[in-house]
Structures are given as structure tokens and as C-alpha cells.
């Protein structure tokens, strides 16, 4: 193991600790916001934004997605495309089917 490598890992570890703290804080924040009893659309938006930030932190740093190979990005891009289609499923089901609201 070269010392370069070891320094690299030390830097990694410092990042992990900061991400850990951020995740803890964000968890507390999202619980605190839910106490405010915001209107449903707003509450959903806020909770989703916080969850996406937390999820991205985990994916980018713990799962090293921030510095991954192109191939992995390609696989995930394809997955993301189909994931979006999947989430459109409720829209498809509930759509009344008219372009213009009656």
C-alpha cells in the first residue's frame, strides 16, 4: 500500500464523517418539519426534497457514485429512465383521459 493511497483513504474517512453528521441533522430536520403540520402538498414536497438530499448523499459518498466508472452511470441512467415510467403508472391509472379538463 502506497502512502498516497493511505492519504486518499484518510480523506475519504473525513468525508464519511461529515456525511454522517449531515444525515443525522437532516433526519432531525425532516422530523421537526413534520411537526409543523404543513398542508399535504407542501409537506410531501419538503419531505421528498429532504429524502432526495439524504439519498443522494448516501449514493454519492457511501456508494462512491460521485467517482464511479462510466459503465455504472450508463446502467443507472437506463434504470432511471424506466423508473420514471414506473412512477408514471399512477398517473396513467388515474388520468381521466381528456387533454382539456372538462
Amino acid at each position, binding site marked *: 500500500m502506497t502512502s498516497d493511497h493511505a492519504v486518499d483513504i484518510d480523506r475519504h474517512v473525513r468525508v464519511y464523517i461529515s456525511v454522517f453528521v449531515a444525515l443525522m441533522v437532516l433526519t432531525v430536520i425532516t422530523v421537526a418539519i413534520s411537526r409543523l403540520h404543513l398542508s399535504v402538498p407542501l409537506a410531501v414536497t419538503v419531505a421528498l426534497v429532504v429524502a432526495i438530499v439524504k439519498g443522494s448523499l448516501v449514493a454519492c459518498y457511501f456508494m462512491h457514485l460521485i467517482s464511479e466508472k462510466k459503465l455504472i452511470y450508463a446502467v443507472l441512467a*437506463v434504470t432511471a429512465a424506466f423508473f420514471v415510467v*414506473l412512477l408514471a*403508472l399512477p398517473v*396513467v*391509472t388515474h*388520468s381521466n*383521459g381528456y387533454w382539456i379538463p372538462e
Partner: protein
Amino acid sequence: MSHPTTVDPHGPHVGHEAHHEELGFWRKYVFSVDHKVIGIQYGISGLLFLFFGFCLMMLMRWQLAYPGAPLPIIGALFGEARMPGGSMLPEFYNELGAMHGTIMVFMGVVPLAVGGFGNFVLPLQIGAPDMAFPRLNMLSYWAFFLGGVTMLASFFVPGGAAQSGWTSYSPLAIIAGSGQTWWLVGMIFLITSSLLGAINFITTTIQLRAKGLMFMRFPFFVWTQFVTAFLLLLAFPPLEAAGVMQLMDRVAGTSFFLPSGLVVSGQPLQVAGSGNALLWQHLFWFLAHPEVYVLILPAMGIVAEIIANNTRKPLWGYKPMVYSLVFLGFMSFIVWAHHMFMTGMGTAMATFFQTTTMIISIPSVVILTALILSLWGGSIRFNTPMLFALGFLPMFGIGGLTGLPLGLNVSDIPLHDTYYVIAHFHYVVAPGTIFALFAGVYYWFPKATGRMMNETLGKIHFWGSMICMNIVFMPMFIVGMAGVSRRLFDGGATYDFAQPILHWNAVSSWGAWIMALFQLPFIYNFFSSMWNGEKVGDNPWEATTIEWAAPSPPPHGNFSTEPVAHRGPYDYSLPGAKKDFVPQCEA
């Protein structure tokens, strides 16, 4: 397959994987991690399930041709609970129908096309020593095996096997008998098996391809398997989720797919309700439309290989074919609701899905057209694999073109759930995909065994099957357009409007039974050729792709020297070359 490998320089870390010693019977033929053995296991299991599914269908055809008439001799075997006095009960007919579909799709065609040919041929064609994860590969086969056993066992539970169709629509499937639970558990095994397989195929294709084998040098078959694996990987999990939810509905009393206010046999159903029955259909078809392409793409791959080889020409339009294939894969995820035009979806949604459906027919036509144009100007060798491959083209064409009226909302409404639909998709899958699979068996048999299958028997098999297939399915278009529903256990005998076309039911049935006779030469040929077939060299078809550079049968580890790809996959009849084919790994 019986050669012990001689490669030995292994690090200490692989010491526990004793591939290198002569393995015992169980490790070599049963719990093998060799992709070729697993491929053959998948292949033979798939063929057996196809045969079994065919037998179920032949029973159904009796009931459809002669509704209520006692089935001579065989009818007595099924007991009073299923065929009292030899006449089929509606419940038994429904069992046969549901299980015929499930077995043919999930346990016959997919395991043979992907598990069998994919496992056996793909690593050889890309010059790999094995799959990337050999033990995962074995696990995948045994998950499939367990799923198959579960499905078969469900025939023997009280109330019999699943009766709600291969689509297992809710709420019908939730109030059905216990066979449906077995069906769901079996499906979860089969899905797991496909997922593990898909991971393995993609990783193997990307990582283990030979030196110099860039993606645009892949044989078309490799491309089809690669795209198919992505479809399996991303489309199957939603069905797994749906399966889990339906299992919860059946076992834990939840109401995911049960709306409020359901009344069953005059009694209000005692459940919480407020679920959504259409949710099941959406999740099911989110898988099942890509699944249609899982059924057809490997078949196109096999046909492409055989056509290039037997016309002694490069494929016409290799690149457009590849682009069409990838485009097809993407599009297959946004057409699913064309199976659901009858569910009362709004016009905007129907318009969207019929538009995407029309668009997806374009790449299919591009591939089919390219395959037909590939024949132009070739001096064609009409051997058995080529006959089956050629048979595929018009049959798939009929299946595909008759699908267009079903993809358009307006014409789908009268045709939906009639025999027209049955005829349409059977033309795609039976004389389409299954012919391609037969072609593949005849084509790669010498690679797996070192022996040829008998040509005369093969030609009898082909012409008999080709004629009978059309006798079976062509009348169904007529029956369907007359308006007979595919779900009737008497084939429409109780309806006045169906009387003028009822005789076509018997024609279909006789076609099916005679076709069964024409499978006997294949079965005999398959087994006798293993031991008595003509011995041939490594490359009997004078093919270019890399699998023919391996010994026949290939030993564990496949190649004696590491293959390197120097050229594209189909260098046939190169001007100025000494032979009319230049192997891909020849410098």
C-alpha cells in the same frame, strides 16, 4: 463435456473451488457450474416443459372440438373430480388454460431461449471461458427448477392448479382456490431465477468478451441476448412486487387489488377494500409486454445467425438491425397499456399507447426486412436449421402484422379477448419463436455433442410442423373475427352467432393432434443422434463466429487457446479470400 481441464496455475485463493480435479457425477452433470452443462439442463427442462404445455393444450383442444363429449381412454385417467365419465369440467379446463400459458411462457420458451441458448452459446460466441458468476448461474437454474416443481405440484393440491389465466388478474385470482398461491410462489422462484440469469448475462457480455470483440463486432445473437437480459432485469421486479402484493392479498387478507363493495356469489366480500384492481394489470403488463420481446428477440438472434451462415453472406443491414433492437428494448417499456384498452382508460391515454405501439412496430419490421433482404442473391443451403429459420420469417410476419389491429384502440375493442388474439400471438410465439428455437437446436447440436442430427428426420419434422401450425392457428382468425371469446370452455357452442364457424374448432384441434405426431421424429432424432449421429468436426457448418473455434463438445473452460476477434461476425464470401468464410478469430 467430460474432459477434465488441464489448466492449472491457480492462486491459493481459488483452492477451494476444485474445478481442476475430475469431478464426481453430481458435480459434473447435476450441480454443475459449467455454463454448457447448465445451458443443456435449461434446454432439456425447457423442451420437457414445452412438451408438457403442449399436452395440456391437446386436452383443451378435445373439449373445444367436441364440447362435453367424453374423451376416450385418456379421459378416465383424470378421475371423477376433473373429468367425470371422461367429460371435462369447466374448472379443469380453466386449470389447463392457465397452466398452458404459464408453462409455455415462463417455463418453456424463456428458459429454452435465454437459459438454454443464452447459457450455452453466448459465452462461446464472445470467446469467454465461462459465465462471469458460475455459481450464481447454477443457483439460477435451481431456482427455476424449484419454480417449475412448485408449478407442477400445484396440480395436486386440493382444488387443483391456478385457474385464473396466465395473467392472474385480480380480483378473480384473489378469491380463487389454493392453487393460485402455489402459482404465485412458483412465479417468485421463476422471477428470481431470471433476475440472477440477467445479471450474469450482462456482466459476462461486458466483461468477458474476447480481445478485439467490440460491441459492433458482436454476432447479432449476442446483441439480442444482451438486450433481453436488460428487459428481464428491469421489467421483472415490478411483477415480483405485484406478486408479493397479491400473495399478501391472498394470505394476509390485505386489499391491494380489491376495491370496496365486492360481492362474490351473492355475499359481500369481508375485506377492508379500497384497493385498485387495475393496479395489478398495470404492474403485470409492465412486465409482460417487455416479456413479449424476451420471447421474440433471442429467436430473431438465432434466425440471424443461421441465415448469415446458410446464405454465405453477411447480414444485410447489421447496424440498423442493432439500432432497431436497442430502440425496441426501450420502447417495449412504454407500450404496456395496449393490453388494457378495454379497461375504460381515457382517450388521451389510449391515444398515447396506441401511438407508441405503432412506433414499436417499426423496428420489428426493420429487423424482419433486413433478414428477408439478407436472402437476396445468396446461394442458399436448405438444411434443417435453415428451413426452420426461413419458416420463422413469414410466420413471424403474419403474427406481427395481425397484431397491428390489436394495437389500435378502435379495432382492438371488437377483437379483444377473442380467438383472433390467440391466433395473433401464437403466430408470433409458436411458429415464430419455437421454430427459431428448433432451428437453434439443429444448428448448435453438433457443437454440444460433436454429432449431427439426422437431416431427413429434421425435414419431416419441419414440413409437418409448418403445415400443421397453420392448420391450427389460421382458423382461429376466422373464429375470432366471428366474435368467439377465448375464455369459453365450450369454444362458443352455446352461442347462436358462433354456430356457422364452430367446425373450425375441430379443424384446429386435428391440426394440433397431427402436429404432435410430427414431433415424434424430432424426439427420436434428438436422442438417437446423441449416440448415433454422424460425427463431425468443430465447424461443420463452416461458420464464422467464435463458438465454432472451440472443440466440439467444448471442454470445461471452452477454448484451447484464448480467442481474439480480428473482424466482424459475418465475413462470408469475402472477395479474394481463399475460402467462402473467414472465421472471426482468424487474423
